[in-house]
């Protein structure tokens, strides 16, 4: 092969590479650059690591990180719910077609839409508390979105409800690709529902579960903005009870006119996300391998 012919394929993909470099690479470089500057308007003087010092020294940033980490607690619940529902759908319980539509709906609807609806539901005088009071369960009628002690958990309920739909879609797709003869054989051998799940189905779903867990970790750390923005009154409230790193960045950039601070926090979040992408790729490889 001549040098010229070796270069040809690269020339074919060069336009796309250039486009990608412009769309993703340029902003990334600018964000890294801004994180070392005190930006006012569209540029500013170089200040070294000062932005990082300020971000890492601010209680609010660490509080935001803590809230992101707290949201990780939702993942086991999401996995369990997704597994149970997908297996039930796979086993075609009575009315499974209707149930399938119902459980997929949250994922089809935009987050702001369901968050606005949930917010109304969870108001102190909203339908959820009205039902609880009607059932004489007044002690459970909490100030779901108005109390700092409860608000993040309420956001978590919403996240679990919606993100589990993704888990159900993924798990069901995997279930539908399983070799049914193995499950049938187990049934004939007398294995009950739990035994079939535990010893036949789950081992074959390990890859997709890992994939879902890694995606969910990334979601909890870097993609919950829409949830907290709507549920937390646009400010991570009440107080700072639902503040997360994304909202911290948004506030620094948009509301407090500190692009340098926003960039420094973005770089930190970016680095954490990059670290998480490696296990994601590994999980995807495993899924493909198992499916093959």
């Amino acid at each position: 092969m001549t040098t010229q012919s070796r270069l040809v394929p690269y020339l074919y993909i060069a336009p796309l590479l250039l486009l990608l470099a412009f769309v993703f690479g340029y902003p990334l470089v600018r964000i890294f650059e801004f994180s070392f500057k005190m930006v006012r308007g569209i540029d500013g003087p170089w200040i070294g690591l000062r932005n990082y010092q300020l971000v890492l020294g601010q209680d609010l940033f660490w509080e935001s990180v803590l809230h992101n980490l707290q949201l990780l607690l939702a993942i086991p619940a999401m996995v369990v719910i997704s597994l149970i529902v997908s297996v039930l759908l796979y086993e075609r319980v009575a009315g499974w077609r209707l149930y399938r539509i119902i459980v997929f709906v949250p994922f089809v609807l935009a987050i702001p839409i369901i968050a606005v609806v949930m917010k109304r539901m969870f108001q102190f005088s909203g339908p959820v508390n009205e039902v609880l009071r009607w059932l004489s369960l007044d002690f459970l009628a909490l100030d779901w979105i108005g109390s700092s002690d409860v608000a993040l958990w309420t956001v978590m309920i919403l996240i679990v409800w919606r993100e589990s739909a993704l888990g159900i879609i993924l798990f069901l797709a995997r279930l539908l690709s399983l070799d049914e003869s193995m499950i049938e054989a187990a049934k004939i051998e007398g294995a009950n529902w739990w035994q079939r799940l535990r010893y036949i189905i789950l081992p074959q779903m390990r890859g997709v579960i890992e994939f879902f867990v890694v995606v969910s970790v990334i979601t909890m750390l870097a993609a919950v903005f829409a949830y907290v923005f709507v549920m937390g009154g646009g400010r991570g409230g009440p107080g700072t009870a639902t503040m997360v790193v994304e909202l911290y960045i948004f506030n620094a950039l948009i509301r407090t006119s500190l692009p340098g601070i926003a960039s420094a926090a973005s770089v930190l979040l970016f680095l954490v996300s990059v670290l998480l992408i490696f296990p994601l790729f590994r999980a995807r490889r495993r899924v493909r391998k198992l499916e093959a």
Partner: protein
Amino acid sequence: MDITRKLNVSRRDIIRTSMMIGAGSAFGGMLPRGAHAQEKTLDMWWWGEQELPGLQKFVDGSIAGYKDATVKAMLQDTAVVISQFQTAAAAGNAPDIQYLWNGIYHMESVWLGYLRGLNSLIKPDILKASNPTQLSHFGGDIYRVGWYPLPMFWCYNKDLFEKAGLDPEAPPKTWDELLAACEKLKSAGIEPIGGGIQDGYWSEWYISHGLVQNLDTLGEAVQLFIGDKDFREPKYHEHWVKLEELKNKGYLNQDMSSLELYPGIDLVVAGKLAIGQTVGTRLPADSKATNGRIGYMVMPVFGKGKLAGMPIVDVQGLGISSNAEDPAAAAAFLEYLQSPERLKAFWDATGWLPSNTTFDSSVIQDPSVRGMWEAWGLKPNISNVTNLVPGQFYERAAIPTGQQIVQGAITGEQAGELAATVAKEWKEFNPDMVENYRKWATDLSAPT
């Protein structure tokens, strides 16, 4: 009104806007010379239809009727009012005329050199009558013409006052009178006071009404927000202590923490809450909905500052950018908007008042609205102190303090400590802005 805080504009929006302006210019250039209505062309970026329906009609009518220049108006998205202007100004492409929220929301552009002073451009009597407010003064110049006012006050439901045995025409004037009224309302089974604080704006408005009670000048507020004065001093956090008192006595509505600002005000209109905070633009509709049973008052007085008990009027405005090629032409258009004929057209199009003390208020039919305008707009008033708040203080202290006091998570004194901490933190994050704020504080402390 500063319900909206500044958002950033994407490069795509800039390009799109530039393309649209470019395309417009190109098509304009293709027209035969005789087709041009006027030689002068002014670009105007404005906002306000979002909070004052009918403003678009007024702008369109004003442009159509203006003969001295062709005005190309663009209604801005709420999210980009400030950033779109600043980005364009930094690139030298700002419009001739720009809509400007009050206080820091345009003062930052002044400090960046993006706005022209208007003292030498607009006739002094017109400028003064438009009430650009003290918050538009910097370095001896004024940077906005007032466009429309936003009086801020406490509202109350007269029917509920009557039900509780209170005089609906004599709302409480002092803090003790307020507490007595709240007690009577509570005893009558009525939720006395509050609204909705979930989105935080109630917190902001409470500071607007409360903090000023112990201030002698608005410059003192700036000194507080940047940490040159100390929020831990009792008089500077007394308003939060008073809010805590309302909470502890059980006077605040129970669902206050989970409701947003406007649904909270709706409770007063619906007769479910006796007293709340509101803005003037709501009054015509709320008064109509209740057959004039919505009353208004200044926040009952507890403080000893010179600003205590003063009506508050925020004003939205228009300014001229430094990029304007013909600032005199831009100024002439702004003066035209303040002409008696245009002031009347403003009222006809929006059903709301223009910001001009010469406006003939006899056209206002609703006695509540007329009374409010006469008491707030035509008598001595002060501007909204929270328009002086740096964004960082607003987000970290102004909003959370109220929310946390209302839910019982912190005391008024702790709110003062938090505010002092955040003011100190602001200085660390914004060392380059401190001197501008100090200069502004000096301007705002000077007698006008």
